[in-house]
């Protein structure tokens, strides 16, 4: 059984046809409304002359983008079929928008990497693939677009697949890559099967998106992680209710189970799993719920409830890959606020270990600083212990953001390393 909500991200080089592809998905799955279409038809004719319909305009966002004709921020799109509801994080492809790509990828289950069949595997497509892998997206689709411009040639498709496969060997964490030849402009292999490419017997894009399994399909496979967000205590005197609320980040919890509360290590049992709709015997990720415990413990926001036999690391030191999101340089010795699950602490960058070259995928040794859109491995020390997992095994308890206390800006996106 699969979750009926799928989040995917798209990115590619400018002009690979990303906007056209999304427009095509929306249009062919009949998600475009008449007034939107009229609007797009009008705008297309203004730009391209009578009779043109540029589906790319369907995903047109802000005025600055319309003026410059580029996507500069993540935009979210929604469509549904009988099988699933989809959320698209539509990301810009330029290097200068790496941070937007990271943002879009952070919540995605699938990433759709676009290639232009004529131009081949360009740097931006590689960067997107790399970032998707770094952000832990297990399922990747390589959409080889504009097949109509290479005479729907199987040979060209195989050539590109081979080239990308060579590159993708270095992408850690990606469990499956599906290659699909398509023409977003003409609609081949996007929603309906192409008559032009009888040699292709794989799935068309929409079928694949409808069927692919996502992380939450097997919530029980992961250890339970429940960060406490909020303590529910009705006004004193009225009742002695005390509930610990939060969203189950992974795994499952059952009534009666023994739990431990980190970082302190106190133990108790689950007395009840409450929701507004009544008590539950068992809850699975990603549900929001409220736990009552058998013992009266003093637990507050930022602590983590889990099973005592499956605990995460608890430490004040960690090692992580950080994508830097601001022009102010990151240097060892700098201090930031670090928000991890529902806990915010102060963190110091102890050392910069290396930097990732998003082109060659090599790690290059100890840089002195990181600039906007750079990604590097660093060691951090925190003012209080955190309970965390490696990002590769848990995206919720393995991620954090860094906040600059003077500007309040979100300046870094961190993914905790295996050997943290």
């Amino acid at each position, binding site marked *: 059984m699969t979750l009926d909500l799928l989040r995917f991200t798209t990115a590619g080089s400018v002009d690979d046809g990303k906007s056209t592809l999304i427009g095509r998905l929306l249009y062919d799955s009949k998600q475009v409304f008449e007034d939107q279409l009229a609007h797009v038809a009008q705008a297309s004719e203004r730009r391209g002359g009578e009779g043109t319909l540029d589906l790319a305009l369907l995903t047109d966002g802000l005025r600055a983008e319309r003026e410059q004709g580029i996507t500069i921020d993540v935009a979210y799109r929604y469509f549904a079929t009988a099988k699933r509801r989809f959320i698209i994080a539509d990301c810009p492809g330029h290097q200068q928008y790496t941070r937007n790509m990271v943002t879009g990828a952070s919540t995605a289950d699938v990433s759709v990497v676009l290639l232009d069949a004529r131009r081949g595997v360009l740097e931006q497509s590689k960067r997107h693939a790399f970032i998707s892998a770094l952000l832990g997206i297990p399922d990747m689709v390589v959409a080889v677009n504009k097949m109509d411009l290479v005479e729907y040639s199987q040979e060209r498709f195989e050539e590109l697949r081979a080239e990308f496969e060579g590159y993708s060997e270095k992408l850690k964490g990606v469990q499956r890559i599906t290659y699909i030849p398509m023409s977003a402009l003409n609609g081949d292999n996007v929603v309906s099967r192409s008559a032009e490419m009888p040699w292709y017997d794989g799935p068309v894009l929409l079928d694949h998106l409808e069927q692919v399994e996502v992380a939450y399909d097997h919530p029980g496979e992961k250890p339970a992680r429940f960060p406490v967000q909020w303590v529910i205590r009705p006004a004193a005197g009225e009742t002695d209710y005390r509930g610990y609320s939060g969203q189950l980040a992974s795994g499952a919890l059952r009534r009666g189970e023994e739990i431990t509360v980190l970082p302190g290590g106190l133990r108790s049992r689950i007395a009840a799993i409450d929701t507004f709709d009544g008590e539950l015997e068992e809850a699975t990720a990603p549900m929001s719920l409220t736990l009552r415990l058998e013992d009266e413990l003093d637990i507050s926001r930022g602590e983590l409830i889990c099973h005592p036999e499956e605990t995460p690391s608890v430490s004040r030191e960690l090692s992580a890959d950080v994508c830097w999101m601001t022009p102010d340089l990151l240097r060892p010795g700098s201090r930031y606020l670090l928000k991890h699950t529902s806990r915010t602490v102060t963190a110091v960058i102890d050392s910069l270990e290396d930097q990732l070259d998003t082109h060659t995928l090599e790690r290059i040794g100890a840089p002195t600083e990181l600039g906007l859109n750079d990604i590097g491995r660093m060691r951090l020390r925190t003012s209080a212990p955190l309970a965390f997992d490696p990002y590769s095994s848990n995206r919720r308890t393995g991620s954090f953001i860094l906040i600059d*206390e003077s500007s309040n800006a979100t300046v870094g996106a961190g993914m905790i390393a295996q050997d943290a």
Partner: protein
Amino acid sequence: MSIATRPQLSHLRALESEAIHVMREVAAEFERPVLLFSGGKDSIVLLRLAEKAFRPAPFPFPLMHVDTGHNFPEVIEYRDRRVRELGERLIVASVQESIDSGRAVEETGPRASRNRLQTVTLLDAIAEHGFDAAFGGARRDEERARAKERIMSFRDDFGQWDPKNQRPELWNLYNGRINKGEHVRVFPLSNWTELDVWEYIDSEQLEVPSIYFAHEREVFRRDGMLYAMSPFTELIDGEEVFTDTVRYRTVGDMSCTGGVVSKAQTLEQVVLEIAATTITERGETRADDRVSEAAMEDRKKAGYF
């Protein structure tokens, strides 16, 4: 641990869980949140989500309605009843008062609307009460500018939104740090569509104001939309008043919200109608968004909902 088959979350439950998480984050990280409640379907869903997030305790924030004075009476009646049922506190910020005190200037002519004036009243009320976070029911599927807005969206000390300089929003980690005088708008329904909202209202069996169901009403046609006759209406030459069976897809100011011809009398019928519709909610019913290609973007930058 065993990997027995477990009940799966439907997309509505997944969206619900995400929204509850957002609400609890805001309650925990801000000192003075407020929930904007208009009596419309989206804010009705917000109230249910707040119940799910905070009961059995009272909400850790008051509710606030920015009242244009040109509302549908059915909606005001519903608003007051719902607030009483919940036992929560409602603040009413009045556009009429902003006009009377000279803070806002009434538009004139038959196409006048108090829609834009709401921004003044809203920002004044946020400042007066010292609110640092305001929950709104806006969704990203509504409109192109909204498609890019964050779930937690920063507003500077003038209440302005800067679409080109938004904070990156990663995973479900929201950065709620602001300085005094600034605030955030929070949109827990960002990832919901209009259909999701109606399916949720149906599955939760929530009561909604009667104008969401088909009813007979005196209307007139303008710019291709059906507007309700009201004490505030000024007809333009040639416009005729007639009676039709309509319902509303959005509830806004009577002066700029159009009805749609409909037979839907129950929640299930509304869900079916929305699932089959070929026109967007705002395109069909909101004159305020038709003004220009970037009408919403401009209003949002100035501090609108």
